[in-house]
């Protein structure tokens, strides 16, 4: 523990400084709040840079845009022209061919839902965007992945770019694309290609790397030329992994297509959800949201099944017909149903009068619930707000008042709080050591003053120190520069608001999620229930998650908190269960043989060993939380997400991109910190392979 000494000292100093700065606030406000006049003109600079870009490269990008719009509108028109019955048949058959009856039935019902509910053409417009953007993204991703596989230098350039593209919130780069490529559905296309290609790159690289050396050598000894070695040995051997990448790319492309509909003018299903949500027609938006969720699930299951499908036993003297049997059947079915649709017109265009649209009943039901349980709902909401959210945000100091907590925060009470805090710190120092005591001291300070009221210089220093402690000087420098950028560009207060909301959501999700995960690892029944729920939550486009919470709790931070938690809880559950279930069997056997009870086994053997994996779950929880944060800005949060949204709405490139970069910076720092910690622990335990 000796090597921790300097860190302990530094933490003591920083907490003391924090208190000192807060005490001096009245005389030297800049110690706590970064002065407006110190903000660098980064936003205007970025705006004029963008203007220059649009002037210089505009025509070039617009040419691309119009070139892309040709195949796009072709696919769009084709999908809309195709009788719904043909699409239904082909999707169902595809599901059957790659997986089996179960998926075929699920796909059939899902597609039928789109038809019956009356969102057929909206769905097809979204699908058209996906149909164009996925091949493009896969092409780009495969090319870059191959490049990165062969050239280390290319890999060093591609990896951080991908990190940035995936951590900068999608909203933030809709605007530059809008400015460069001009208004229209092409924006959604470009954005979804940009957002969706990284998984293919990663999986292509991974797949190519994992081809066993001996397989390559066998290829070489069979006399393969360089192109033969690549196309006939490396790529086919890596195909499974590459297809997993295609599956992830498809899902990312689809979620971006939905997000991009916020620009409007596309008449697709995402727009339907958004516009109804804005008009507070939650029944309608839920029905449209279900369409999105079903589309996502069908696409996910079909592409995933295609990736993992076992090859069928080949026939040796195969003819053309037997080799392409499935394709021929599909074509036959398609043409057959198309011909039938000529005779029976309802198979061609689903009659309006047959549509079932139960939005009104849904709305009535929701209204009933909201009115009937109004007291309960508002109680939950205010309790969470006054007793949990506000203290973290602005501190007990400002939260406690007769209006909120029912009593005054008198000096006596303040002194009592301070005394209790000191006592707790002392107790922790005695029982758990200095570092834990310091952590308690920090929490006590935070709870009293509120995260958003803490002085910026010490927060910056603390984050830097933490990075150093967890990883090393390199990450510390990165943290310092990244947060420094947020501070001098003047979005620090918003960043703190984001950290507060996201942090709270992550903390709660992780606590609840890890508990569920631990229980699921002990009880198979719970695990079986949780699995499909997790799958569904994870494939659901983020938008849709907002709707149910919005219906009941209306607009506000609490709704945002719940929506973020609903999404971020998934990895916490999954990693906890995975970590606990994958502990080497011999360790468990040894512990059992020694005579551990089930409880001892869990607390003293399994949990310590699973902790690194659970930390990776925390990492993912944070990433998911940040991703959802931006979407949650739609239902009324302040912070960086809201700034991104404002930037998009006002067409202010600088505002949007600074806020977007800010979120990316926070995400990347949090990512590196948790990863570093988990790796360190894993190596200490000898569990990691590298």
């Amino acid at each position, binding site marked *: 523990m000796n090597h921790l000494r300097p860190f302990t000292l530094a933490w003591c100093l920083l907490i003391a400084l924090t208190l000192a700065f807060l005490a001096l606030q009245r005389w030297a406000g800049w110690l706590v709040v970064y002065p407006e006049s110190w903000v660098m003109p980064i936003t205007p600079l970025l705006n004029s840079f963008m203007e220059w870009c649009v002037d210089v490269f505009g025509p070039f990008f617009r040419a691309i845009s119009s070139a892309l719009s040709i195949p796009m509108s072709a696919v769009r028109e084709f999908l809309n022209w195709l009788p719904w019955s043909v699409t239904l048949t082909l999707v169902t058959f595809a599901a059957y061919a790659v997986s089996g009856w179960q998926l075929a039935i699920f796909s059939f019902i899902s597609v039928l839902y789109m038809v019956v509910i009356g969102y057929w053409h909206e769905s097809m417009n979204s699908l058209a965007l996906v149909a164009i953007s996925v091949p493009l993204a896969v092409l780009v991703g495969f090319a870059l992945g191959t490049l990165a596989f062969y050239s280390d230098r290319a890999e060093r350039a591609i990896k951080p770019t991908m990190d940035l593209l995936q951590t900068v919130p999608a909203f933030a780069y809709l605007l530059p694309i809008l400015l460069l490529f001009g208004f229209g559905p092409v924006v959604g296309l470009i954005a979804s290609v940009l957002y969706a290609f990284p998984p293919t790159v990663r999986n292509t690289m991974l797949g190519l790397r994992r081809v*066993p050396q001996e397989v390559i050598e*066998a290829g070489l000894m069979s006399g*393969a030329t360089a192109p033969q070695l690549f196309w006939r040995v490396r790529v086919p051997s890596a195909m499974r992994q590459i297809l997993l990448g295609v599956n992830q790319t498809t899902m990312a492309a689809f979620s971006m297509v939905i997000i991009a509909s916020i620009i409007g003018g596309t008449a697709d299903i995402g727009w339907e959800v958004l516009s109804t949500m804005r008009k507070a027609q939650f029944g309608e938006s839920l029905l449209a949201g279900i369409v999105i969720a079903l589309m996502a699930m069908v696409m996910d299951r079909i592409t995933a099944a295609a990736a993992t499908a076992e*090859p069928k*036993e080949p026939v040796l003297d195969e003819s053309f017909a037997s080799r392409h049997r499935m394709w021929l059947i599909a074509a036959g079915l398609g043409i057959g149903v198309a011909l039938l649709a000529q005779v029976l017109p309802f198979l061609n265009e689903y009659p309006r009068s047959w549509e079932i649209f139960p939005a009104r009943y849904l709305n009535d039901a929701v209204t009933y619930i909201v009115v009937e349980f109004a007291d309960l709902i508002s109680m939950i909401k205010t309790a969470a707000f006054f007793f949990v959210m506000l203290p973290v945000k602005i501190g007990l100091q400002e939260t406690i008042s007769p209006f909120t907590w029912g009593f005054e925060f008198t000096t006596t009470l303040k002194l009592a709080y301070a005394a209790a805090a000191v006592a707790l710190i002392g107790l922790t120092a005695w029982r758990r050591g200095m570092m834990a005591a310091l952590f308690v001291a920090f929490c006590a300070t935070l709870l009293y003053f509120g995260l958003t009221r803490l002085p910026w210089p010490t927060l910056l220093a603390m984050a830097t120190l933490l990075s150093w402690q967890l990883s090393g000087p390199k990450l510390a420098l990165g943290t310092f520069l990244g947060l420094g950028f947020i501070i001098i560009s003047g979005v620090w207060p918003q960043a703190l608001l984001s950290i507060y909301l996201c942090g709270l959501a992550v903390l709660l999700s992780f606590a609840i999620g890890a508990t569920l995960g631990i229980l699921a690892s002990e009880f198979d029944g719970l695990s079986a229930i949780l699995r499909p729920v997790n799958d569904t939550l994870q494939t659901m486009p983020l938008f849709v998650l907002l709707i149910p919470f919005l219906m009941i709790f209306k607009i506000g931070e609490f709704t945002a908190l719940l929506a973020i938690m609903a999404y971020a809880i998934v990895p916490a559950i999954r990693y906890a269960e995975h970590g606990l279930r994958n502990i080497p069997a011999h360790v468990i056997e040894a512990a059992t043989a020694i005579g551990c009870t089930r409880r001892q086994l869990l607390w003293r053997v399994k949990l310590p060993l699973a902790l690194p994996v659970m930390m990776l779950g925390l990492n993912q929880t944070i990433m998911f939380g940040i991703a959802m944060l931006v979407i949650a800005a739609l239902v009324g949060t302040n912070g960086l997400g809201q700034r991104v949204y404002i930037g998009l709405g006002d067409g202010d490139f600088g505002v949007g991109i600074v806020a977007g970069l800010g979120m990316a910076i926070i995400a990347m720092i949090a990512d590196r910190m948790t990863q570093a910690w988990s790796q360190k622990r894993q190596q200490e335990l000898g569990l990691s392979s590298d």
Partner: protein
Amino acid sequence: MGETKDDVKLSCRNLWKVYKSSAAPYFKSEVGKTGVKELSERMREDGAIPAAADVNFDVHVGEIFVIMGLSGSGKSTVVRCLSRLIEATHGEVVLDGEDLLKKSDKDLIDIRRHKMGMVFQNFGLMPHLSVFDNIAFPLSLQGLPRKEQIEKARRVIELVGLEGRETAYPRQLSGGQQQRVGIARSLAIEPEIWFLDEPFSALDPLIRRQMQDEFLRIQRSLRKSIVFITHDFLEALRIADRMMIMRDGQVVQMGTPAELIVNPADDYVAEFTEEVPMVRVLKARNVIDPDAQPADTMPEQDSERSVEQLLPLLASHKDGIRIMRDGAVMGVVTAGSVISALAHQDTHRGAEVPA
């Protein structure tokens, strides 16, 4: 092809493979002047790793040449230099009189397509191809018409006994079956030189034994020139016509299995031979009694018979057995000579090989 058993098929001359750091300066000035041991030592001190140091051997037509060594001894490096999966740092690999290391990439591909076959420890099968397509893979790379591919592949499938499994995928097969696919694939192009890199090491002991027998059976009908890598001394003894033991990248000893057992070059080799059942490895010609005279009453036995096979005859013919080679009497084996040879082994390892 007009090749006879004594022709050299493949010859490895002063082969070096040095990892890390440029070893070029050593090869300009010092190879041949400084001893191999000292030179390797000096390279190690400079942070380089000589994985193969001055390796020399010939492989004759139709011969099984085994390279035996523990892991890290450089045996796999050597076989990969021979096939140029790894580029050697220095030396020559002469195949049919031409230096392989000087061939262009195009020529090399051509040689691999027509002259070389290789079998790998973990099989190296293409996971996405069926058994049949794996075996026909080298043929299809050459662009042969499908009909010819099927015909040639059928022949080797029959040879290794995989009929009926053609449409299976590698992961559906047992280890032994997978290696049969590997062997069939390497033989499909009818190679002249056959490399086997620990082909049976990943298999269970019983299957290993069975595959060794299969391998010897195949070799009896094909008479390929073979370089066989193994870390298993007993496997080497069973299979080798001649063998070479490597350690730390250097050749420790080379000779026939019997020569190695009877006369291990140093304690390292001797350690391997300790557990070897002598009566099985020693051949009749190794235990000839120099003092005994042949008599017509003695039974005749071939010089390649193992001592174990002679024992029952010796029990009934106290005066000895005539040992024949190429129709002529080579000498006489007596109970005394066998006992003294075996006793010799256990007490004085490193003694002279009986003529």
